[in-house]
């Protein structure tokens, strides 16, 4: 049997299920989205028009978009910060072990690494806690008579009903970040762990501080990680419906009335026309978005390949630093080739020699004496 035949054999069980439970039924949904409610008269796009004229649809779509636009950047930045903090703490611990340097932190902690992995668990644990369990806590916290208002009372602020006002949106944001911070943190940490330590050491020798290291070494190499992390955060963004539903039911405050609520209510009310049309619209929109994002990523990757951009850092400790940062390497990076070239460049730069021009995509770190 040919290679591709075998591939299909491996795919068969899953593909069979996906076709049966998702693809074929979805074609049926698409067909129904063009039909009348009663009987089976063809009505063309009028169901779609009904959806697009529906106020609830626009409210829900706007809320969902707003939620994603607020939450994803917030979550990405916060989890990246936590990941970087852990990494720097772990590095300090390692250095302490090797007896090279000892910070105030390292001095106090003998088993710093162990402690860090325990703290890490504190951040990742929420992803294991079911929504149904924690909703009791969130109710106690955010209720009008709950703990948060108790705290507000002690501090002399007026309490408010967090779940039934504009604040409900922010309550949901908190729930989302609480749940997903650990997951994103793991993704970032794996990305950071893949960066060669020698790069940092070379940069430090040249006087780069913590922030310069982060900005010019860590960040550019986390691009691929950022792409996946953002994607998975987006996927998880839809799951916040669970918390929203368990906290506030079918019809929550209008600031958290999401597309998921709307679909659910149309489903409960058997509003099949609107539901099928809206589902088709959403699939179309997501498909276009995904296609555009994929194409854009590919175009950027090929455009930047072999192209170098020169970026100069701000002055640091009085010594101007100049890095040649390879801006391109966006998505798939072939690691061994890349690392090899980098290594050579650093050896040159690290020994204070003039960085020789040896390759098309080499990263050089040369220090220019002022």
């Amino acid at each position: 049997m040919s290679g591709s035949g075998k591939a299909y054999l491996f795919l068969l069980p899953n593909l069979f299920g996906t076709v049966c439970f998702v693809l074929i039924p979805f074609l049926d949904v698409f067909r129904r989205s063009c039909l009348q409610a009663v009987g089976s008269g063809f009505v063309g796009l009028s169901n779609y028009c009904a959806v697009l004229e529906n106020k609830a649809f626009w409210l829900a779509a706007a809320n969902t978009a707003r939620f994603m636009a607020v939450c994803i950047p917030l979550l990405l930045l916060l989890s990246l910060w936590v990941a970087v903090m852990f990494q720097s703490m772990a590095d300090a611990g390692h250095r302490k072990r090797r007896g090279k340097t000892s910070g105030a932190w390292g001095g106090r902690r003998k088993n710093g690494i162990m402690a860090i992995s325990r703290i890490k668990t504190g951040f990742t644990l929420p992803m294991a806690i079911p929504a149904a369990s924690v909703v009791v806590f969130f109710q106690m916290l955010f209720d009008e008579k709950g703990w948060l208002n108790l705290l507000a009372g002690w501090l002399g602020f007026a309490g408010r009903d967090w779940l039934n006002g504009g604040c409900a949106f922010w309550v949901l944001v908190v729930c989302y970040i609480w749940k997903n911070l650990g997951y994103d943190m793991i993704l970032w940490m794996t990305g950071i762990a893949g960066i060669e330590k020698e790069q940092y050491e070379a940069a430090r020798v040249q006087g780069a501080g913590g922030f310069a290291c982060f900005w010019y070494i860590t960040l550019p190499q986390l691009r691929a990680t950022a792409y996946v992390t953002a994607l998975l955060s987006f996927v998880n963004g839809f799951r916040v419906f669970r918390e929203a539903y368990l906290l506030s039911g079918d019809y929550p405050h209008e600031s958290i009335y999401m597309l998921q609520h709307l679909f659910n209510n149309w489903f409960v009310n058997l509003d099949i026309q609107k539901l099928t049309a809206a589902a088709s619209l959403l699939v179309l929109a997501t498909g276009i978005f995904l296609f555009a994002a994929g194409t854009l990523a590919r175009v950027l990757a090929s455009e930047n390949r072999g192209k170098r951009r020169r970026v100069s850092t701000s002055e640091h400790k009085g010594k101007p630093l100049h890095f040649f940062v390879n801006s391109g390497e966006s998505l798939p990076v072939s690691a061994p080739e890349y690392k090899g070239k980098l290594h050579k460049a650093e050896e040159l730069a690290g020994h204070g020699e003039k960085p020789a021009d040896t390759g098309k995509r080499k990263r050089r770190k040369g220090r220019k004496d002022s």
Partner: protein
Amino acid sequence: MKKTTIWGIVMRMILAVLLILMVMPLVMLCTNSLMGKREIIETCGAVLSDYGGKAQFRLFPQYPTMRAYVRLLLDSPEYFAAFWNSAVIAGGVVAGQLFTAVLAAWALARYDFPGKAALRFLYMLLLILPFQVTMVSGYLVLDSLKLLDTYLAVILPGIFSALPVFILSRSFAAIPKEVIEAAKIDGAGDFGIFIRIGVPLGRPGIFSVVILSFLEYWNAVEQPLTYLKTESLKPLSLYLPVMVKGEVQTAFAASIITLLPAVLLFFCGQESLEKGIGASGSF
């Protein structure tokens, strides 16, 4: 970073505060589950059912007792029925995914075949789409198969979700080509390579998919809400909120028992979970 600067200390303090906030819900659930009936009504009755007054905050119960757990164990058969429902659903989905998703991910990661790009695109699309979009189509097919209102209504569509394929194909793709070439030279067949090399080397990925899927379906709200109508079939994720409203004194104990299987599994497989999640993020 030779010296710990003031800035560094401030950062660490923020991190510590964040950590406390992260573990707070679990700690509060634990301590409140040890309260007696009276104390619970005093502190939480105002919020969870209408006892009037305001909630009170106690980090530790005044009179710790296991009463709530005993009551839950002896007095609430419905709770354990729901527990069993959750176990069947989550277990069924995980078992099914182990069979189908692992194979599919291997094909996507290791073979070139016509239509691969389209299939990848399809799986990505299915990964991103929220459940509500495929809700109707799922309902229609389950209805025509007469599966609505059975465990299978939640299990079958769950087996074919795209996330495990996504994560697994990433961790399979990370296996070095040389290993597989070597096995081929030694005369291993395609399936032999999959069993002898793919499965053992992809083990962290497989473990993490098992854990993530279990967590996901232990926590499932939308699917049972849509496809199950009989009360006695509903899983914990739907039964617990109802129960909390009815019986305040066991609310916290029931929440703790609910999260116990998920958290235990999480601790058992934490290392491979982190590896697997990490592998899904790197190219």
